[in-house]
């Protein structure tokens, strides 16, 4: 349709402009990743000589070292082991936090999106306010709490902290999502004699699955990508998560000779699960309309 219109009004340049725009967006989004990806396949000495030239050819050694499969690694054995443990720990905390958070937020989002009840306005405000809290404001009391009751350095403690971020965010997002789903199907199910739980299980949940899946992924990203809570509550312990371990390899850390190739490879491996999920579920995530659930369907 657009092409016809373009021909009519003589806007033959339009596809070229769009093409240039796509190229620009792709460059902006991908070039920074590409640069580190390239470095991750290079030898340490070749990186220092300049990533652009790459005098030394490509190697898988950095990745093999992260995975503990290379014999050439001696100094960084501890750090690479921390990366692998970090992978496991991050999965062990991010997946359950996402599961519990999504389950609770699905219920809350459904009720907030479907029903009117007293004090709904103030309750929504509280939800939004908890979503915008600076993490550092929650970290300090949790740090003192956990030190006192022995939950510091435990994945369970971190799990609780992630719920504080995930529940308000996803309740908000899913509220908008449920409000955008047609209520008529649910109403018909009730008319046909379904109990509320039957309706929720057999009608509402299947209908809302794409949104719930996207919410689950967002929740997973919150836990998987977090650094602040992870480094304070698990840094240096056996429960240390991936972000904290990665930072341990950073050239920025004082008193430590960094290995740039190893750092690049570990970072790329750490980014792999989020990147894959974002690519696979792009459509669901985009359709969630995170921004404006309350007014999104008033048009």
């Amino acid at each position: 349709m657009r092409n016809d219109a373009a021909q009519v009004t003589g806007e033959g340049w339009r596809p070229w402009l769009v093409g240039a725009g796509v190229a620009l967006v792709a460059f902006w989004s991908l070039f920074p990743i590409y640069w580190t990806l390239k470095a991750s396949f290079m030898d340490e000495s070749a990186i220092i000589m300049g990533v652009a030239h790459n005098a030394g050819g490509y190697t898988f050694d950095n990745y093999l070292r992260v995975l503990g499969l290379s014999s050439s690694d001696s100094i960084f054995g501890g750090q690479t082991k921390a990366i692998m443990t970090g992978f496991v720990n991050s999965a062990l905390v991010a997946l359950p936090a996402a599961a519990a958070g999504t389950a609770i937020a699905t219920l809350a989002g459904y009720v907030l999106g479907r029903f009117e009840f007293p004090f709904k306005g103030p309750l929504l405000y509280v939800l939004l306010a908890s979503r915008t809290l600076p993490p550092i404001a929650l970290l300090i009391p949790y740090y003192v709490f956990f030190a006192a009751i022995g939950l510091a350095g435990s994945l369970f403690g971190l799990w609780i902290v992630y719920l504080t971020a995930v529940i308000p965010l996803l309740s908000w997002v899913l509220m908008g999502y449920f409000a955008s789903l047609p209520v008529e199907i649910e109403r018909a199910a009730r008319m046909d004699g379904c109990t509320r739980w039957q309706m929720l299980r057999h009608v509402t949940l299947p209908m809302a699955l794409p949104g719930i899946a996207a919410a689950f992924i967002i929740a997973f990203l919150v836990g998987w990508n977090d650094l602040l809570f992870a480094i304070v509550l698990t840094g240096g312990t056996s429960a240390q998560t991936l972000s904290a371990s990665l930072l341990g390899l950073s050239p920025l850390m004082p008193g430590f000779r960094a290995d740039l190739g190893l750092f690049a490879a570990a970072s790329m491996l750490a980014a792999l699960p989020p990147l894959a999920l974002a690519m696979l579920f792009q459509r669901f995530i985009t359709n969630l309309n995170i921004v404006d659930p309350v007014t999104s369907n008033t048009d």
Partner: protein
Amino acid sequence: MNTASLTPARPALARRGGKEMSDLGFAMTVIVAVYALNTLIIGVPLGYSFWLSLHDTNAILRTEEFVGTDLYGEVLADPAVIDAIWRSLGFVAMCVAGSFAAALGISLVLNEEMPLRGLVRGLALLPWAMSQVVTATVFSFLLNPSFGALTGLLAPLGLANAATVWLSSDWALFWVALAFVWHVAPLGSFFYLAALQTIPRDLYRAARVDGAGPVSRFRHITLPHLKHTTLIVLVVMTVEAVRQFDLLFSLTRGGPGTSTQILPLLIFRYNFEFSKYGLASAAAFLLTVLSLLLATAYFMLIRKKRPQGDSHAK
């Protein structure tokens, strides 16, 4: 708000036998349970943080002494805090302006018809999906003075000195803001994309028939439709920039010197490097109040119905 219209059949549903919970009963049960949980895991720690901010704690003697609002006065008199606040303001301004522009630009491209649009949208989403720690890695490789892309680009042009200047501490805050923009812009672009998709295609067609060029179509149709979303994007980006910690901590740790030490990083140092819990809590509480103000602005924006005339206004 159209939730009321979603359950007009409530009386009909309620008539079905008295055994089952009413809509209201069901809603209230869920709400009370969820908000009780939120109070426990968010409200109580916040309250405790406020209590800490009113007490001078001694980490070694493990004593707490009530000092009222003294610590708030101390925070606001501390030049390091004032510096951090100014730096935060600069950082937030750059982040918000940059991510607004990038988000709008990206969304305009992604809204066009094109082959493989899903793939392109997925690629544009990648910087947002990556953690801020990895974003920091990526930018440290881009900006490294000896092997980074910027140096690699400028050195052959004979601008190696320019690269040194740009990567000095004077520019550090700019580069971390750029990294932030790169990371967060996709989120804003999806807000815009949702808004762009609600603009009726007919408007553009009619404007074309009337002989409006692409620029005036953008000015008179697209932009007015995006006004509401823009306000929301600005608030959301401000919230994100004010909360910002991970990226700066892993990219610069507040350095070089204190050139990128914004408020959350300073609070972190107070608490975890100097063990000044009360002082850190007081500063954190000030930050919380700021974020509450932002939340209020955000809330008023979305509760305010999109003005009917908005979409057709000049």
